[in-house]
């Protein structure tokens, strides 16, 4: 099933076509995604924005394969996520997707290096080598002196940097960020996005950020706005801001 993923700058990294997702709610299902179509390009930071409950996080979940769709098609770097078995999707995620969660989800009993090395260990790297690489990434992100610290010893902004390091350490093609500034103050959130933009955005990589924080829209290359389970607007960020 797995074959090399290739992507060139501005090629389509994520293609979502007519995706429907419902959640059971008594007799009438609740529609989280209604016939959603959406694309994200490689080399760009795409933001999915909209009010709470509009389906942003559901769309993110189906793109990375952590949630099944009712219908529609999702391709990530040319691979049909919906056609994969659970094991194949899991393996695909482990190789190709980096996650930055709203609550960071850093394991409190592991050091920063151990936390950041997890994606590599999941790919079968020996612990020591994985931690060495994680330490190098943490150092690039300005946490070189704290690699043996525990998450509770860090500020929110520093924890976000560890989460970014964990998302980047295995060199994934797709970075998924769920409300990356929700747990941070404005200034720290701004710095985190700067760092994400600097370190994560590469011609062959696609970064998708879900947010409702309009203060960080300026970091986006492309913005897709959602409302009531639909993508109501999808355009270059400059155009969106201008509108």
């Amino acid at each position, binding site marked *: 099933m797995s074959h090399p993923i290739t992507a060139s700058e501005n090629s389509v990294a994520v293609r979502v076509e007519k995706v429907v997702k419902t959640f059971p709610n008594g007799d009438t299902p609740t529609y989280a995604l209604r016939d959603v179509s959406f694309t994200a390009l490689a080399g760009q930071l795409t933001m999915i924005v909209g009010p709470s409950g509009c389906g942003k*996080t559901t769309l*993110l*979940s189906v793109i*990375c394969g*952590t*949630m099944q769709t009712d219908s529609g098609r999702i391709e990530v770097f040319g691979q049909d996520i919906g056609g994969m078995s659970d*094991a194949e999707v*899991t*393996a695909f*995620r*482990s*190789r190709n*997707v980096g*996650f930055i*969660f*709203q*609550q960071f*989800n850093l*394991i409190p*009993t*592991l050091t920063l290096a*151990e936390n950041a090395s*997890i*994606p590599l*260990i*999941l*790919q079968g790297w020996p*612990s020591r080598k994985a931690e060495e690489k994680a330490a190098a990434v943490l150092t690039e992100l300005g946490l070189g002196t704290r690699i043996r610290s525990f998450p509770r010893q860090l500020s929110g902004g520093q924890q976000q940097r560890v989460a970014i390091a964990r998302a980047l350490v295995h060199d994934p093609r797709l970075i998924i960020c*769920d409300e990356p500034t929700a747990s941070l103050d404005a200034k720290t959130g701004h710095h985190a996005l700067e760092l994400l933009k600097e370190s994560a955005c590469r011609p062959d990589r696609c970064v998708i950020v879900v947010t409702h924080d309009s203060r960080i829209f300026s970091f986006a290359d492309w913005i897709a706005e959602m409302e009531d389970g639909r993508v109501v607007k999808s355009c270059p960020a400059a155009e969106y801001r201008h509108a």
Partner: protein
Amino acid sequence: MLRIALLMLFRDRAKYVMLVGGLTFCSLLMTQQTSVFCGIMLWTTATVRNIDAKVWVFDAKVEQVNEVIPLREIEVTRVRSVPGVEWAVPLYLGIEQARLGDGSFQNVQLTGLDTATFVGRPMEILKGRVEDLRLPDAVIIDQVGVEKYRKKGIKIDIGTSFEINDKRAEVVAICHENRSFLAQPYVFTTYDRALQFAKPQRKMLSCVLVEPKPGVSPQELAARISRVPGLRAFARDDLFWTTVRWYIKNTGIPISFGTVVIMGMIVGIAIAGQTFYLFILDNLRYLAALKAMGARMPILTAMVFLQSFSVGFVGFGIGVGLTTLFGLKVLKLETPPFFMPWQVPVAVAVIIMLICSFSALVGLRQIAKLEPAVVFK
């Protein structure tokens, strides 16, 4: 990921200590109580273990070694006539009253050995000689008796005399024997002298000790002797287990100890199960994150079982270690019973691992239900 699992466990100090503590307590309770139970059962069979004979012959109604119904002297001859008997000798077993120099009384387990052969003689003589039993009034007393009297301020040594049922007895040797169920000192003498010490009855012979001819198994010979009307014979091992089974069936000892062992299991399941479940619940969002990042269920299962078995192994080790220390202390004192055969720690290890498996499965149920998408909520 297994290393990560262990780090997650060991560094969560409070829960780790709670888990290990619960399983240590559970393991300690089960091992210690079972060992004390085994110790008591061993005490009940002290006579079988102290007297070296392959086949024991009693009255047909006898059910265990500590319950003696006297036989006629002629039974020795009847036993000798059974095919396959190499030799057969009489043995006297009885609880008699000894009076010491200071006038105090003490019940003793009087054992009368065949005068000619001393078959059933003490296995370990600490002081003196068995052969001196042929001297007038001679008896051999065991270390338990010496210690008991020493605690009362009376020194017993070779040459010390006392009375058994108002008849003079003189210590010619001191032996080491397995302690009896009622902790009465063993006093050995010749069969003929034992009959003089004992209160006279119509029948005085307690049992007959038999050696099978070469090629005849003790079990086979015991079966043959048991066919003689009025006699019941046991091979040594059979008598040991028959006695143990009798005490298990006819006394409240197993219920008492069994209750504590079951309580230990329940405490273990409750503490370890609940704490481990809490540990999993606390880590659920991180496990969901791992699932989202590509950790498959077999990896998470291995992680959870490793965590569970690690605390089980450590708790079991500490529990059995503490029990062993208790046992060593007790064996020095020789007061409470204690015997830990290898089957006890093995059985406790199996129970502990079952408790751990149960705890792990309860936690895994939560993880299996977990949608990786919950990390985005």
